[in-house]
C-alpha cells in the first residue's frame, strides 16, 4: 500500500480547516467552497475505498502504520475492515450533505466551517484508528468542535445543551481512558494496538475483563446512548443547528456502537458474554421506553431524537445476541439509522427554516401545500417505523432474528415496540401533513433544489438497501462472521 488513502481522507479535512482559517471572514463564498471541496474529496475517496475494498479479505485493509511515540509504543495506525467501511462511507456522505445543508448558516461562517471540518476529522479518524491511543485522540477531537457548534450556532438553550453534551461525554470518555490505560498495562508487551490486544494470547482474567469492560461501557453507553445515559441527546439535538443534528444522530451515536464492535467485544470476549444479558435488557428498555417518551413529545426534533434512542436499542440487542445474524443486523442498523435519521433531521430543518417552529401541533395539512416534502417525509417516516422494502426493516429484522433464539422474551417485547413506533410516527405525520391546512402556512413553499439534492441520495440508499440489502451486507458479513467466530458466538 504505497498510497496512504486513509491519511489523505483525514488530511483533506484538516487541510480544509486550516485553509478556512486563512481566508478572510468576509469571503463567505470561498469559505463554503473550500469546505465543500474538502468534504467532497473525502466523499470521493471513500467511494474509492468502497470500490477497492476486497470483500473476501477479512484482515484490515488499507493499513498505514507509522511509529509515533516509540517510548510507550504508540503508533499512528489506521486501517479498515468490513465493520468500519460502512460507517466511514456513512460519515463521509453525511459530512458532505450536511456541509451543503450548512450553507444556510449566516453568522460567523468562518468559525463554523472551521469547527465543522475539524468535527469531520475526529469522526473519520475514530472509525479508522487501530491504535487505542490514537482512537482516544480522535474520539476527543469530536467533542470540542461539537461543543462550539452547539454553543454558538444553536437554539435558545444552546449553552445548557452544549455544556451538558460536553461534560456528559467527557465523563464517559474518562472512564474509557482508564480502560485504555488498563489494557495497556495488562498487555504483554505493553501495547495500544487493538489487533494485538484482540489476540487470544492477550486474554485477561475474567474479573479484570469485567472491570475494563465496564470502563469502556461507560464511555460507549453515553455515546450510543443507552438508558439511563441518554438525556444529553434530546437537548443536544434540539438545540443544535440542522446540519449538526444530522451528524450528531447520523454519525456520533454510531461511535458508541462501533466501540462495542471494535474494542469491547473483540478484546474482552469473556466479559462480553458475561454482560450479554444486561446489555439485552438495556436494549429492550431503550426500544420500548424511548418509544413511549417519543410518543409524548410535542417538539418535532425531540421526537426524532427519542426515536433515535429507541432505534439504537436494536443495535445493542443485535450485539448482545452474539450471533452472526444479530451482529449483521446491529451493524446494518447503525448504517441505516444514520441515513434515515440524518434525513429526518434534514426534513425537520426544512420545515423549521420556513416556519421557525418545531411544535408538531403548530403544523397541519401541509401535505396539500408541500407535496414533494410530504413524499420525502412519508418515505423516511415509513423507513423509520420499519416498513419492509425500506432499509430500516432489514436491519431491525436481522437484529430480532439473531436475538430471538438467545433472548426469547426480550425479543418478543422488542417486537411489540414496533407498534408503538408505528403509532408515534404516524401520529407525527398526521399532525404535520394531514388534516386541515393551518391558515398560518398558506404561503409556505415546497422544497427547493438544494434541499432536494441533499435528500435524494439518502432516499436512494434507503430504497436500495431495503430492496436488496446485500449491497451493504456483502461488505460487512465476512468480517462479522470472523468476529463472531472468534467470540464463540452462534454461527447462524
Amino acid at each position, binding site marked *: 500500500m504505497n498510497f496512504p488513502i486513509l491519511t489523505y481522507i483525514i488530511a483533506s479535512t484538516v487541510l480544509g480547516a486550516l485553509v478556512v482559517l486563512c481566508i478572510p471572514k468576509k469571503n463567505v463564498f470561498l469559505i463554503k467552497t473550500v469546505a465543500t471541496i474538502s468534504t467532497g474529496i473525502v466523499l470521493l475517496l471513500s467511494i474509492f475505498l468502497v470500490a477497492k475494498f476486497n470483500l473476501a479479505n477479512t484482515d484490515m485493509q488499507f493499513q498505514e502504520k507509522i511509529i509515533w511515540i516509540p517510548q510507550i509504543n504508540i503508533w499512528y495506525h489506521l486501517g479498515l475492515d468490513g465493520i468500519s467501511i460502512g460507517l466511514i462511507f456513512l460519515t463521509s456522505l453525511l459530512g458532505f450533505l450536511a456541509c451543503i445543508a450548512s450553507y444556510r448558516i449566516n453568522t460567523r461562517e468562518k468559525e463554523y466551517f472551521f469547527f465543522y471540518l475539524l468535527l469531520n476529522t475526529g469522526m473519520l479518524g475514530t472509525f479508522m484508528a487501530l491504535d487505542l491511543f490514537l482512537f482516544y485522540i480522535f474520539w476527543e477531537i469530536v467533542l470540542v468542535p461539537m461543543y462550539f457548534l452547539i454553543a454558538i450556532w444553536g437554539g435558545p438553550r444552546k449553552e445548557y445543551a452544549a455544556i451538558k453534551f460536553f461534560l456528559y461525554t467527557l465523563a464517559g470518555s474518562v472512564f474509557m481512558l482508564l480502560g485504555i490505560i488498563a489494557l495497556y498495562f495488562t498487555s504483554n508487551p505493553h501495547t495500544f494496538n487493538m489487533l494485538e490486544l484482540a489476540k487470544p494470547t492477550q486474554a485477561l482474567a475474567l474479573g479484570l475483563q469485567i472491570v475494563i469492560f465496564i470502563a469502556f461501557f461507560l464511555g460507549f453507553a453515553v455515546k450510543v446512548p443507552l438508558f439511563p445515559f441518554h438525556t444529553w441527546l434530546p437537548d443536544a439535538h434540539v438545540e443544535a443547528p440542522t446540519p449538526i443534528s444530522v451528524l450528531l444522530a447520523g454519525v456520533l451515536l454510531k461511535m458508541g456502537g462501533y466501540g462495542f464492535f471494535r474494542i469491547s467485544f473483540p478484546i474482552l470476549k469473556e466479559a462480553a458474554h458475561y454482560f450479554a444479558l444486561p446489555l439485552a435488557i438495556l436494549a429492550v428498555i431503550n426500544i420500548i421506553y424511548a418509544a413511549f417518551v417519543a410518543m409524548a413529545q410535542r417538539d418535532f426534533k425531540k421526537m426524532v431524537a427519542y426515536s433515535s434512542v429507541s432505534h439504537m436499542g436494536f443495535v445493542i440487542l443485535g450485539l448482545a445476541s452474539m450471533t452472526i*445474524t444479530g451482529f449483521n443486523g446491529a451493524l446494518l442498523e447503525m448504517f441505516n439509522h444514520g441515513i434515515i435519521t440524518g434525513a429526518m433531521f434534514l426534513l425537520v430543518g426544512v420545515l423549521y427554516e420556513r416556519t421557525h417552529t418545531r411544535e408538531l401541533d403548530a403544523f397541519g395539512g401541509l401535505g396539500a401545500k408541500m407535496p414533494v416534502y410530504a413524499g420525502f417525509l412519508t418515505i423516511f417516516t415509513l423507513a423509520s417505523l420499519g416498513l419492509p422494502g425500506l432499509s430500516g426493516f432489514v436491519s431491525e429484522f436481522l437484529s430480532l432474528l439473531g436475538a430471538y433464539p438467545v433472548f426469547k422474551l426480550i425479543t418478543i417485547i422488542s417486537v411489540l415496540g414496533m*407498534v408503538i413506533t408505528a*403509532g408515534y410516527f404516524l401520529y407525527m405525520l398526521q399532525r404535520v401533513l394531514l388534516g386541515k391546512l393551518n391558515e398560518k402556512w398558506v404561503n409556505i413553499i415546497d422544497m427547493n433544489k438544494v434541499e432536494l439534492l441533499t435528500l435524494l441520495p439518502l432516499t436512494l440508499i434507503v430504497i436500495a438497501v431495503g430492496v436488496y440489502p446485500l449491497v451493504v451486507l456483502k461488505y460487512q458479513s465476512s468480517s462479522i462472521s470472523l468476529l463472531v467466530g472468534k467470540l464463540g458466538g452462534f454461527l447462524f
Partner: protein
Amino acid sequence: MVNYAHLIPIFPFLAFTVNILFGRKLKKLSALISILASACAFLFSLLTLLGYLNGRGSYTFLNWFQWKGFSLDFGVLIDPLSCTMLLVVTFVGTLIQIYSIGYMHDDPRFSRFFAYISLFTASMLGLVLADNLLLLFIFWEGVGVCSYLLISFWFERESAANAGMKAFITTRIGDIGLLIGILILFSATHTFNFSALQGASGNYTLFTIAAFLIFSGAVGKSAQFPLHVWLPDAMEGPTPVSALIHAATMVAAGVYLVGRTFWLFSSHPLALNWVAYIGAITALFAASIATVNNDIKRILAYSTISQLGFMMMGLGMGGYSAGIFHLVTHAFFKALLFLCAGSVIHAVHTQDIQKMGGLFSKLKVTGATFIIASLAIAGIPPFAGFWSKDEILSEALRAGHPVLFSIGIVTSLLTAFYMFRLIFLVLLGKARSKLSAHESPRVMTIPLSILALCAITIGLIGSPFMHYAFQNFIHPEVESLKPDYLVMLVSTLVALLGIGIAYSFYILNNKILPVALRAKFAPFYRVVYNKYYVDEIYDAVFIKPCIALAKLSSKFDSGIIDGAVNGTARVTVLVSRVKSWFDLRIIDGVVNLTAKIVNVFSRSLRLAQTGRVQSYLLVGFLGLVIIILIKFMGGI
C-alpha cells in the same frame, strides 16, 4: 424457458413509479398507465396459469442475504392457490381501476390515486407470489401501508386521516404476532421457505403457538374479531379503494395467509379450531351490526367482515377448498357491491340510506347490478355466493361442527336480511328526501356489468354442475365432494326468509314494525347500533392508557432521569461552591492571614522607614543611650 411470473407485480410497480414521479405532467394519462399495467399483469397471470398447467412451477430469482452458513433466496411460488389469487386480483383490480376513471375524474390528486392503486396491486401480487414467509411479510406490510395511504387519501378530512392511522396500527398489532410467529418458525426450522416448512416438524406446543401467532396476523388483515375495528372506518377512503380493499387485496391477504400456511393449522387442531371459532364469532357479530347500520358503505364493510369470518370458519373446519372458493366468489360480488354503492353515492352525494329510496327508476344499471350482487351474497341459487356458502355449510356438517353450522345458518339469515334491507331502502320504496340522481357514466357502468356477469356465473366453477372443478384444481387430494341437497335447500330457504323479513319490515310495514321492535329490544338494539362499544372499550383499555404511559414516561425522563443528571450537575456545583468557599475562606484565609500578619508587622516596621537621616540618628542615639543605661544598670 423464460420465467416471467415475477414480472407480474413489476408491471403495476412500474406504473406506480411513473405515476408518482411524473403524475403532475401525465394528468389523466396516469389512469391509462395504471390500467395498462394491471391488464398486463392479468395477461401474465393467465400465462402463468397456463404454464403451471403445463408443468412449470416455482423458481427463485434473487439472493437476498448471504453469509457464512446462511443464505436466503427469494422466489415465486406457483401453485393452484397463487394462480387463483393472481387472476382474481388482476381481473377485479383492473375493472376497479377502469371504474375509478369515472369516480375520481375531478379529483385534484387523480394521478396520485392511480399511483397508490398500482402500488397496492403490486404489493398484493407480490404477497401472493412470495415463496417464503419473509417475502410474504414484506409485501404484507406493503399492502398495509398502501391501505394507509389510500384510506387517508382525502387527508384534509380529519376523519380520513384518523381512519388511515387506525387501519395501519390495528393491522400492525396483528402483524407483530405474525412476525413473532415467523421468528419462532425460523428458529425451529432455519428456513422461511414455504415448501421447506411444509415438511418441517418440531415442538408441538411451540408450533401450535406459532400457528396462533400467524393467525393473529390474518386476524388483523382480514379484520376478524377483535381486530376488526379498522375496516368500517376505512370507508373514509374513496369508494373504489374500498372495493379494492374488500374484494381483491388487503382483507383477502389474511385468508390467503391461512390458506398458504394451512399445513401448520391442519396438523395442529387446537389452532385450526381457533380459526373456525374466531371466524364464526366474527361472522355472526359483524352481520348483527350490519342489520342496524344506516351508512351504505359501513353496512357493506360489516358484511365483508362477516363474509371473511365465513371464510375463516370454512378454513378452520378443514375445508380448505371451501374457504378459498368463498374468497374467490366473494371477491367478485363484493367488488360489485362496493362499486354499485360508489355509483349510488356518486349519484346522490350521501351515504345515509335513510335519506335514499326509490332510486331504481333513476339508476337502472346500477340498480340491476346491485340486486344481482345482493342475491349473490345472500346465497340465492344459482348466483356465485350460493355455491361457496353452501360448500362451507356442508363442510360444517361433514366435519361434525353442529354449533358452527347453526352459526352459519343464522349468519346467512342475517346476511340476506341486511342486504335486502339495504336494497329496499335504497332502490325501492319512495324517495325519503329530495335527491337529484343520475346514472353514472359508461366507464363506471361497464365494469359493473362485467362484474355482475361474474357474480352470476363464477360460482358454477365450484358447483356440482362442473364436478367441483375449482375444488379439484385448488386441492386435488381432497375427499370426493358430493352435493348435499338438504344443506342447499336449507340455506336457500333461510336466505329467502331473510329477504322476506326485510320485505315485510321495509316495504310492507315501512315504519311500524321496526319501531315496535326497537322499543322492545331497545337496550340490545342500542348495543348493536353502537357496534357493541368495541371502539369505546379499546379507547379506554388500550389507547388512553398507552397515551398516559407515554406522558408518564416523558415526565419520568425529564423529571427523574434528566433530573438526576441535572441534580448531579447541581450537586457538583454546590460542592464546588462549598469548596470554593472553603478555599476562599479557610485555605486562602490562612494564606491571607499569614500575609496579613506579615503585613501588620511590616506596616508597623515601615513606620520606622521614614527616610529622614535625623530620625535615624535620633534612633541610633536613643539606642546608644539604652545600651549605656543597660550596661550601667547591669553593672550594678
